[in-house]
């Protein structure tokens, strides 16, 4: 049974994933990370950082350039603007390609990859893209895929240069949202749902403080993270509670910070993974959600059902259940919707309405409930890839000061929002 969106596993009833345990993630590379591109240093441009991340991932896997036969990336880099009308540079930085995104062709050319047979530059954002990569390798479209996800942040206040935010007109579906000030699903619809959650369960915004502080703590234990490199200090509860308000009650510390960086991963077959440098981390399943609610704003109940359905798809395809998930890295940008994933997947037994109580318990990496050991996007900067790279490191046992003290045989990671996402189930064991 195939999904009506091709490679996606976005329906219930698909059964065990046909490539369960036959695809592995064997390499990871993270580039340098800055708040913004300075517009001058070409090695820190989108293309420059992509090259850095890709070469690191290939080296991490112990592969050579000639081993790569698949290239997969997304143009959804959240640049929110083009580099133009600013002047382009000498080749290969003479178009948007390499400056606000980095296509498969660009990387193939710049790295001199000779054996590529599968190129995909229009994959979705990283959550579903990781599933697409696993499926592509499983289906034999390529044997060894290089997969990268840049996040681009140029000069100026984030989002303020986006033409859609400066137009007198609201075209397409935005006609029903923009005229009332609606901006993005993560920022608005999920905040509305957070308000509905607080109303239903008697919770309040300050219930997110413990999660926020712990994410920053984990992020500071991530050597490459934005905060470890550029703002190496812990937030206090007072900082959080008095944070600058963006959309009341959402404060600046609920928002993952846009950064300029790239992460890359190598997917290959379990067969090929056997004799590589790293212990393989096997993919047991991938699952996606792509629905939307009935009306303008999805509701709490709709999001809860969306995540419950995502969880059922994940259990069905991986053969695992809530008690089998050791590492859990769901999206946290913004903090207001992370609780939906926690409760929907029932990680560590957390039920609807219980997330804030769980946050107030011991969620440190040293403790019994090392939730979001990655530090998430709030703790490392908005890379989204950190959710997957930490999962990889925890399963390899190489997470350093973030290494959890609980069992770390399986990991569940994904993004973005409860109603629109892609998740991967990873394991040290192929079955």
């Amino acid at each position, binding site marked *: 049974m195939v999904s009506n969106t091709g490679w996606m596993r976005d329906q219930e009833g698909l059964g065990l994933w046909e490539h369960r345990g036959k695809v592995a993630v064997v390499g990871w590379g993270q580039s340098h990370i800055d708040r913004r591109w300075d517009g001058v240093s070409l090695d820190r441009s989108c293309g420059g950082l992509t090259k850095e991340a890709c070469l690191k991932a290939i080296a991490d896997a112990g592969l050579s350039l000639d081993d790569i036969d698949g290239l997969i990336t997304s143009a959804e880099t959240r640049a929110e603007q083009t580099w133009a009308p600013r002047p382009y540079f000498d080749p290969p930085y003479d178009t948007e390609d390499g400056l606000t995104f980095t296509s498969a062709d660009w990387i193939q050319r710049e790295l001199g990859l000779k054996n590529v047979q599968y190129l995909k530059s229009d994959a979705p954002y990283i959550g579903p893209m990781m599933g697409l990569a696993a499926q592509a390798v499983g289906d034999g479209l390529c044997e060894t895929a290089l997969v990268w996800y840049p996040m681009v942040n140029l000069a100026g*206040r*984030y*989002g*303020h240069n*986006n033409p859609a*935010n*400066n*137009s*007198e*007109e*609201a*075209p*397409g*579906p*935005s*006609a*029903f*949202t*923009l*005229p*009332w*000030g*609606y*901006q993005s699903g993560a920022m*608005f619809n999920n*905040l*509305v749902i957070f*308000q*509905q959650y607080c*109303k239903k369960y008697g919770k309040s915004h300050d219930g997110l403080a413990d999660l926020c502080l712990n994410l920053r703590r984990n992020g500071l234990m991530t050597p490459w993270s934005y905060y470890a490199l550029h703002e190496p200090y812990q937030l206090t509860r007072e900082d959080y509670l008095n944070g*600058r*308000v*963006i*959309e*009341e*009650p*959402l404060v600046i510390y609920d928002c993952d910070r846009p950064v300029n960086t790239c992460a890359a991963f190598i997917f290959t077959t379990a067969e090929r993974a056997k004799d590589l440098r790293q212990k393989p981390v096997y993919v047991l399943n991938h699952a996606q959600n792509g629905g939307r609610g*009935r*009306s*303008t*704003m999805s*509701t709490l109940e709709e999001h809860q059902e969306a995540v419950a359905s995502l969880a059922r798809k994940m259990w069905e395809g991986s053969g695992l259940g809530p008690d089998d998930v050791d590492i859990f890295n769901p999206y946290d940008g913004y903090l207001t919707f992370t609780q939906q994933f926690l409760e929907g997947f029932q990680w560590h037994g957390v039920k609807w309405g219980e997330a804030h109580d769980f946050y107030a318990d011991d969620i440190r990496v040293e403790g019994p409930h090392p939730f979001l050991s990655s530090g998430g996007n709030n703790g490392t900067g908005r890379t989204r890839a950190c959710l997957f790279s930490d999962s990889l490191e925890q399963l390899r046992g190489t997470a350093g000061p973030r290494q959890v003290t609980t069992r770390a045989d399986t990991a569940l990671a994904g993004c973005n929002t409860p109603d629109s996402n892609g998740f991967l189930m990873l394991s040290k064991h192929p079955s």
Partner: protein
Amino acid sequence: MSTIPGLERPGPVPNDMTRPFWDACNERRLVLQNCTSCQRLHYPPAQRCDQCGSADNFQWKEVEGKGHIDVYMVIRDSRIRGFRSAQPINFAVITLDEDPGINFLSNLPGTPTGEVPVGAPVELIFEETSTGQLVHEWQVVT
């Protein structure tokens, strides 16, 4: 112009599917797609019924224009140009009394920012946008 000081709403651009909706707004009427085979309202407009899947049984139906405030927040730092000149500004979700599964956005003209009576009844009004197109809005029933 909006009755909210400083607010310049982007103007909705009608397309083939949504033109009857926006034309009705310009006549100060709120019309929703109603699936005549399963009696289900749709908003925003859709290509097909999300309940029975039918694409051929939509009729535009005028609704009464009564609702309630579900939840709200306050926009203090918008990325949208026409809202930056009006912030802080209310942003509320309104459920339609005829079918509370249908919801609308509202900046609640006339309600002081942050003083939103959650749960209160609201009634339909219309406001002008940057392009002159009218949009549906909601105000607290006094």
